[in-house]
């Protein structure tokens, strides 16, 4: 039997907490929220403690944070229309080194590419921006993508190549790639019946998981022209829909690159974990996922984000409108 257990409540925020993200080595957890601050949590003698408070960079709610692949940089984005870049110096102290302006209104998400070469951001202004990250800490805008017709909620990069995926209030998920001179939309994934709140890649970059206001989680797989395993045309296809598990909007999903479990959470205050049924795996059939664990009332209000620790795979972080960050331990099925 698998199980999900609360390890610790982390108290430091004075208002709703919007996002939690582990650094690449899994030693620091960053959280941010409506109190306009970022808290970095580290482990000391088995307890997670607030080590650093980063404040005064944003004038309004900080909606999301993202670590660079080396963990040297942290990007934060805010409803004040800006993105702030924080850099860790040799002594481990983080300082704000750049503010990126350009979005017309609330910036909803930021993400670094796996190469560290690009930063992407998205906003209620319906655009997705791609920025280049130069060695001298100069950030230039490489592209402004107008593909979505509504508010763009979240973005994430493939773990293996420079492919960006975004999801929106327009119910779609879109993929972007550099065509040599500019970034272009290569695929549009349709199927969700309402706002797509979040999207995440698996560890191989061949699959995506999305979650929506329509209360479903969907798994998508990319088929290449060479894959003669299925009758699918090349491109992204929905291969599994998980419905009936959440009875309200699902706000976030994360897919562990270590053990392949998917975590989802949302407005029903519940955290759920799904595992793939690998025994039933047959290349000619669609994958099967089953609910492996769940934690009803994980928080006392909406759960806004969940994040798997990228090194210590059993650790899971969540955050909520109730102002708390929580760390959970997950024991996988035997």
């Amino acid at each position, binding site marked *: 039997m698998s199980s999900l257990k609360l390890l610790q409540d982390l108290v430091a925020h004075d208002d709703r907490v919007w996002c939690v993200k582990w650094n690449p080595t899994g030693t620091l957890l960053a959280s941010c929220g409506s109190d306009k601050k970022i808290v970095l949590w580290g482990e000391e003698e088995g307890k997670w403690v607030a080590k650093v408070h980063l404040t005064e960079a944003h004038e309004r709610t900080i909606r999301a944070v993202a670590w660079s692949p080396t963990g040297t940089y942290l990007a934060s984005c805010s*409803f004040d229309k800006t993105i702030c870049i924080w850099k860790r110096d040799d002594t481990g102290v983080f300082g704000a080194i750049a503010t990126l302006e350009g979005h017309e*209104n609330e910036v909803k998400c930021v993400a670094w590419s796996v190469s560290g070469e690009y930063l992407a951001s998205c906003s209620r202004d319906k655009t997705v921006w791609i920025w*280049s990250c130069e060695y001298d800490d100069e950030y230039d*805008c490489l592209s402004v993508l107008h593909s979505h017709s509504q508010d763009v909620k979240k973005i994430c990069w493939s773990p293996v190549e420079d492919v960006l995926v975004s999801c929106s209030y327009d119910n779609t998920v879109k993929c972007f790639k550099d065509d040599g*001179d500019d970034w272009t939309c290569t695929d549009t994934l349709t199927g969700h019946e309402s706002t797509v709140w979040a999207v995440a890649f698996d560890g191989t970059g061949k699959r995506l998981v999305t979650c929506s206001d329509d209360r479903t989680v969907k798994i998508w797989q990319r088929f290449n022209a060479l894959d003669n395993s299925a009758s699918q045309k090349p491109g992204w296809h929905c291969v599994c829909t998980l419905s009936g598990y959440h009875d309200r909007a699902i706000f976030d999903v994360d897919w562990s690159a270590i053990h392949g479990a998917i975590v989802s959470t949302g407005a029903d205050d519940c955290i759920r974990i799904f595992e793939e049924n690998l025994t039933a795996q047959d290349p000619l059939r669609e994958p099967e996922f089953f609910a492996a664990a769940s934690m009803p009332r994980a928080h006392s209000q909406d759960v806004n984000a969940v994040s798997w620790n990228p090194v210590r795979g059993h650790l899971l972080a969540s955050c909520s409108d109730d102002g708390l960050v929580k760390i959970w331990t997950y024991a996988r099925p035997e």
Partner: protein
Amino acid sequence: MDGFSGTLRLTDLNDFIAPTQECIKPVKIERKSGKLSAIKITSSGDYAEVDSHGVETKLVKAQITLNDCLACSGCVTSAETVLIQLQSAEELCRVLDENAKVSAAERKLVVVSVSAQAFASLANRYQLTMKECEEKFCGFLRSMGVDRVYDMGAASALALKETQREFVDRYRSGDRKSALPMLTSACPGWICYAEKTHGLFILPFISTTKSPQQIMGSLVKNHLAEHQCKSPSQIYHVTVMMCYDKKLEASRDDFYDDLYRTRDVDCVVTSLEVEQMLEQRNLVLSQCESVPLDRLPGVESSFHAVGGGAGGYLENILSFAAKELFQTEIGPIEYKVIRNQDFREVTISVNGEPKLHFAAAYGFRNIQNIVQKMKRGKCPYDFVEIMACPSACLNGGGQIRPPDPSVAKIWLQNVQQLFDSLDCQKLENVQWVQQLYDAWIGPQDDDRKRLQLLHTQYHSLENKSNALNIKW
């Protein structure tokens, strides 16, 4: 909003209504015929209609969705929207029809000025050479009742000439920090974005020289009017442009003459709308009669500037400035591409020392980098040719679309080739430009007429931070 440049679309023309304002979104009301009925509030708080038989029907609420709100231009910019409705092919046809009905004394002189980019778009669509296209399109307009058809060479020449002068003045002003980089002003999408989002900071750097469209407006409503002994309001002036944003430009208060109640450009029609006009009449441009273009008084030949589809600002200002400021003749310009084809720079060195640093930045992403570099005090350029559309004006939002999006690149290349087939000249090699300038504007030191006819101003329209607009 579809036809407008991406830059313009990003500037929140249709943002959410503030709760204090009244929503003007029209809602369709189903009116059923029948006897009078009463409306009552039910115990559950719904509204119900009660007919004469006492039967209750629950009434449906009028719903305004976010989508309605975003698609509605009722808030913020209703004034602009109304002005743009006056800028359509239908309006042009209406004016021509009316003109045909009134007495000779009341008739307006209908003048159409066509940009070279629009000619290139039409020539590509109808498989004509540039020359053929000019004459066929002129013939078509004449058959509709248009009195004069001009190209915009003279306006383009005067715009370049005045921009050259403005750049050199700014360079010499001594206060380089507040005067440079000088940013071009010919692109209305860029101007709208600058005014709405970077107002007070960026506007002082923007060239005050009018765009070719608006100089054409002054030429027609002032120079031509005087020559024809007409008042500006007796001329109806239409431009055919590559870009929807030009409609916004023509609608600006700065180009409205209070005294005569007339605009320098009364109506802007895009290449795309011309295609629709022809299609509505079941016409193909090649079947139209060929009629040579008219020439404005003082314009002795056609003029097409070297330096590409964005008006040739960078090249013409650079060669003039090198000569005027450093007594250096520059040869063919070698661009260095920065990041993408739409962001290029040129450096002119004198005795091995870099002196002039110019750039061309097209498309929103590159505009963004220039603006942010300026804000950080790290912009290395003296002059930037800025255009809102990727690939600049030949790719304008008002140009005729390819039959299939998959051939868009080749389609644009063909338009580019047609445009490049024009016989391009350097400004200083065209004699009549100086003569026209002198005859129309007067002596170089008469600033009053020069500023009135060739310059304009910009207005900061930055969003006031209204507490009611803030969500969360």
